[in-house]
């Protein structure tokens, strides 16, 4: 076992591209789930409209990338309004089912032959973020310390991405301690009590859904810019559950929970991956039990098991306060 390699992959994943787009998306999901108690199981739909809004605006309508980002945000607002209108007055489970279904509708439509001219069908779209890389301030070279380093291109994505994640966190932190945020938490704890105080619960929930959705769209935009491509099957339902796992791991309804959770999630996944790969290669794990191709599946089985155990034994995550997030209803 080469622990230096395991450590390198652990650190690289903790600050890497997957962690950064997860972090931005998780900050939005934290506003939904952590602060407002909305069960949004189709968060990936917001990431998808953000990414596709940008990609389609640039490749099909020949807008600039910055205008494309605004288009992606507008799509996210519209999606949130569409999802919230029928469900926010109902029990929490309805929003869960409708959001996951809506995300799947979008994926089916985006990957269909019928929409291929606009969305690129199941191949998706590529090369729409040149504007972003054109202003890369990092000269050519590799950046990092010791064994952990990134190309100038990756460094620029990571710096910009983590700055965005930081800004989003600040925004949500400021909102959450404002009177508006206190109403959200009141709604999460007891919707009827908030209503009896004269608050328009539906409107507050809708505002939270829209704002968190836009943050989710930013997550999708970070992902799309990083890979310079959008492909519909990247946006499948399990990804939402992975973001949930990351959020709950860090602690829902906390300021840094989504950030730390996303870093931990990917770092642990990468470290297990490398460790398992080495163990299989070195013969510590016999071939009959697990082959090289099965490692990916074991990692995701562990994610599922981890989510169950977290929710049963430590629903408040690493940093959370149990009293803050009782989730009783």
């Amino acid at each position, binding site marked *: 076992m080469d622990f230096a390699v395991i450590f390198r992959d652990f650190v690289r994943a903790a600050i890497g591209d997957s962690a950064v787009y997860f972090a931005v998306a998780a900050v939005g999901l934290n506003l939904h789930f952590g602060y407002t*108690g909305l*069960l949004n*199981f189709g968060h990936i739909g917001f990431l998808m409209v953000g990414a596709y809004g940008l990609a389609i605006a640039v490749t099909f309508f020949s807008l600039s990338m910055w205008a494309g980002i605004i288009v992606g945000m507008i799509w996210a607002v519209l999606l949130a309004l569409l999802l919230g*209108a*029928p*469900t926010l*007055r*109902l*029990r*929490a*489970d*309805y929003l*869960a*089912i*409708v959001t996951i*279904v*809506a995300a*799947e*509708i979008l994926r*089916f*439509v985006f*990957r*269909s*032959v*019928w929409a*291929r001219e606009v969305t690129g*069908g*199941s*191949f998706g779209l590529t090369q729409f973020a040149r504007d972003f890389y054109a202003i890369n301030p990092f000269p050519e070279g590799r950046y990092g310390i010791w064994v952990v380093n990134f190309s100038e291109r990756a460094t620029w994505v990571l710096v910009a991405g983590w700055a965005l994640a930081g800004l989003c966190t600040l925004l949500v932190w400021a909102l959450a301690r404002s009177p508006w945020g206190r109403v959200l938490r009141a709604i999460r704890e007891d919707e009827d009590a908030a209503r009896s105080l004269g608050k328009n619960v539906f409107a507050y929930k809708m505002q939270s859904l829209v704002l968190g959705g836009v943050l989710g769209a930013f997550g999708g935009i970070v992902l799309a810019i990083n890979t310079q491509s959008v*492909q519909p*099957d990247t*946006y*499948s*339902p*399990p990804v939402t*559950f992975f973001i*949930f*796992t990351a959020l*709950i791991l860090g602690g829902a309804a906390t300021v840094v929970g989504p950030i730390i959770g996303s870093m931990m999630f990917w770092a642990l996944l990468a470290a297990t991956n490398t460790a398992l790969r080495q163990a299989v290669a070195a013969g510590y794990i016999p071939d*009959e039990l697990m*082959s090289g*191709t*099965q490692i*990916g*599946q*074991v990692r*995701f*089985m562990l*994610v*599922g*098991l981890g*989510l*169950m*155990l977290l*929710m*049963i034994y430590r*629903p408040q995550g690493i940093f959370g306060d149990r009293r803050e997030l*009782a*989730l009783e*209803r």
Partner: protein
Amino acid sequence: MRARWIRPCRVALAALLFVQLLAVPALAETAQESEQPSEAASDAEEPAESVRGTLLQRPEDGDPVPVDGAEIIIRSNGEEVGTIVTDADGAFESGVPGPGDYEAELVVESLPEGVALTSDAEDANVLEFDIAPGQSRTLLFRLGEPSGGGSGVNLPLQLTVEGLKLGLIIGITSIGLSLIFGTTGLVNFAHGEMVSFGAIIAYLFNVTLGLHLVPAAIIAIFFGFLTGAALDRGLWRPLRERGTSLIAMLVVSIGLSLLWRYGMLFQFGGGTRPYAQYSVQRAVSIGPVQIAPKDLWSMAISIIVLIGVGLLLLRTRIGKAMRAVSDNRDLAASSGINVEMVVLVVWALGGGLATLGGVLFGLAEQVSWQMGFQLLLLMFAGVILGGLGTAFGALVGSLIVGLFVQLSTLVVPPELKNVGAFLTLILVLLVRPQGILGRAERIG
């Protein structure tokens, strides 16, 4: 408090793992040929996409004959990406450059004398298909004597029958989902995995261990009963006793769903595979409708089972108790009904029905590790349409969803057929959130 329930929880999970491990050596051999890496978005390793299949001529009477030396051209975006020639067994297999949309053309001139496609249609020798990351796609060209079939088929009627078939399968699987919600309040996201589990257990006994499909299906249903009961006793009941909130339990069910689904991918591989019996059948014409005998049987079995479940709910003591608990848990408990017992029966019944649905779905399509998850969203549409928590509502809603999915292909491309059903779900919530048979008090 904690220590008391950890043990049964472990026992249940150990049992689940045991069932999966049981399948390891048995499945390993068949899994090798089609073993594929996970299609998960983040997987960095290169997935190996491929197409494969077997060209068999199926005469009206007698055994299928392999077709040797036939040529198949694979195209992507009009460009040729490969040519495959079938071997002496009629089998062919080839890698493709990556995920995406493809077209396969069977070169008619390369077919031996006396072999032709079943259909006379101009482009019957061309298949359009898409390949997901890591997928190994089976291509099926129908060869035989040209029958000129399809001329007398009435399309809307044909789709209605297919819609009923799908609706019945969704109905069988969603009754459990709805009853579980009704009696415990839990929206069980792992219900789809129970469906795949049933199909895979039947596959294990049918193909790997060589049993006929009928006893294999009965064994799978038995496993479904046991697993449903074990999950309630080992996991959900301890959580209820602990006072875990419904939302937390919902998230637990998602964790369970992920664990189980990727566990099945681990065991079964990423391919889709048919059962040993009934996989290819010639359709028979009944009036203006063509249907394979296996589908007739599937529909007959579904209807008989659903009538049985209906009678159970209406006529028997336990059925009445289930409906009573569904209506009002506290009132039922105070009138002397053993609620935990009823919930256990609901879980076992739901598990058994879901596994049966899985076998039927595997018969209609093919067996794959994620078939249940694909069905789950249709189940949700069905139960919400019918009214969450009502058993008969789930049935009515599922039938409507099944019909809607198939009939919508009259106007939308087949690849978007589920979208219509999903959109209906959202519309129903806008207009009548309690569903067709539901009552308003459930929703608020």
